[in-house]
């Protein structure tokens, strides 16, 4: 099977009695920009947490290129080329932008543990190569001028970019974005759309959760809508916009009393 396909089959995740993700199936093709949308509390982030190994789901299977990744810990999933960003930004806030992006190079670096005690010429070269990769990425995300700034002190929009740069630093095959436009102004959102296209041009599959409907309808090629943990619709943005179940989930049905 092709190495770059993510398939979720009947994934279910429960928290006690609450079913957060209910029998969810997805099929994300290579090179796609895939959207996962739904009202607040629909279980989108939980679904992402299941894919990235933060939560283990109880039922179903998650395969990545034919390999079952359901019960792997987060760092092993990253090694397989799946990386995510967080809805609430999770950067290493006391450290500089460049060091934050460097963290993404961790799995690409071939230094061993003992290189932390003694460097060899090879490990110095590796160190240098990775810094170079970091600065190439900072250039890609137009962050070079912030390289030495403490990341916690930067504006929200810039922190979002740093988090994406950090994720891209691992050279992923699948990039999972959890509400990348949250808290961004219109101009920053436009730049984000641009960035997502440029990321896709690099051959990276993008899976995103987003509340900003304009953004979702513009960038995604295929969408799945979930509500109360379960899938209610899937299709291209045009199909989704006309789907009565989706309209009901977002706007309420006509006979609801307000």
């Amino acid at each position, binding site marked *: 099977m092709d190495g770059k396909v993510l398939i979720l089959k009947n994934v279910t995740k429960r928290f006690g009695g609450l079913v957060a993700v209910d029998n969810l199936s997805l099929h994300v093709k290579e090179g796609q920009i895939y959207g996962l949308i739904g009202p607040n509390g629909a279980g989108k982030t939980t679904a992402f947490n299941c894919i990235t190994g933060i939560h283990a789901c109880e039922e179903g299977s998650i395969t990545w290129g034919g390999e079952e990744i359901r019960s792997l810990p987060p760092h092993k999933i990253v090694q397989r080329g799946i990386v995510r960003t967080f809805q609430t930004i999770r950067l*290493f*806030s006391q450290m500089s932008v460049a*060091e934050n992006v460097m*963290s*993404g190079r*961790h799995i690409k670096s071939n*230094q061993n543990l003992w290189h932390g005690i003694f460097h060899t010429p090879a490990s110095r070269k590796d*160190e240098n190569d990775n810094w170079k990769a970091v600065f190439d990425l900072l250039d890609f995300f137009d962050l070079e001028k912030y390289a*030495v700034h403490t990341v916690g002190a930067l504006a929200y929009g810039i922190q979002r970019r740093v988090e994406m740069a950090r994720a891209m630093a691992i050279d992923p095959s699948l990039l999972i974005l959890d509400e990348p436009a949250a808290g961004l102004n219109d101009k920053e959102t436009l730049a984000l759309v641009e960035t997502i296209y440029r990321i896709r041009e690099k051959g990276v599959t993008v899976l995103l959760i987003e509340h900003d409907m304009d953004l979702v309808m513009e960038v995604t090629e295929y969408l799945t809508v979930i509500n109360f943990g379960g899938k209610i619709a899937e299709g291209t943005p045009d199909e989704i916009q006309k789907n009565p179940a989706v309209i009901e989930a977002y706007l309420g049905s006509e006979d609801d009393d307000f």
Partner: protein
Amino acid sequence: MMKKLQQIGYPLFFIVMALLPAVLNSRWLAVATTFVIFTIVALSQDVVLGKAGMFNMGQAMFFGLGAYTSAILNAHFGWPLLATLPLAILIPAIFGILLAGPIIHLRGDYLLVATIGFNIVFVQALQNNLGGLTGGPNGIFGLQMLSIPGMGSFQDFTPYYSALIVLLFTLFILRNLDNSKAGRALQYLREDDLAAGSIGINTRIYKIYSFALGAGIAGMAGTIYANQYSAVSPEAFDFIQSVLFFTIVIVGGSSVPGIIIGVFVMFVLPEIFRDFSTWRYFIFGFAMIFTMILRPRGIWPAKFGRIPKAFIKKG
């Protein structure tokens, strides 16, 4: 500006330290030696507490493991003290891995309590003359000290200078650590455990690694400590000592100058005010309170942005 200060700061510090024995009498030379040794242990504590952010209150145990390894090999098996150094590093490091392994998933205070437990068990074992080797509550004495051939008249100063050499070596290791993948991984997992895992860092391995490295360095300091007094005894490695090392890192901050200041405040100052006997422990209390209020990240906190200069563009 700060950079410049540090560039001249380190050589200056070592020149002053190298010349210090010329002006000190034997009591203050002993204080200076212990100051250097405690700096090494505090630096090793900083690897676990400051860099990786894990509350380890048992560093004196690893310090003691190193000291006792050297003492036992020297007293019972007749090894020269210098030859015991590799084992005095290795054995604490192995214990670090074995002990940290099962408890590493504990967070914050829970880890702290577990490490206190280890420390207390360790001292108990020493006091009960474990295997007939540790010499009970009195410890082991009459160790053969390090000596430089043909420099017999220089003997008084060897403990001090050997400690200084080990400190230099420790600083060299820590500098390598800061500029390596492993060292940065420790910083990342302190800042945000979950985020570190989500970009591919095996947090468990690196947490254990920090314990092993910290234990190894502390063990190395232990050998030098055994050399200084040509004896080891259990009370030098009890829980209160661990508290001291912990406090040094908290008060001083997670940086080399911070640690040196911390050791000075928490160890040398109480020695200077020895006449005030137990009152000097007020310094502990006040130092803690004032740093918590005024400098919550320590007197000289860690600086980030360690980026190779070649990459930084002007502007």
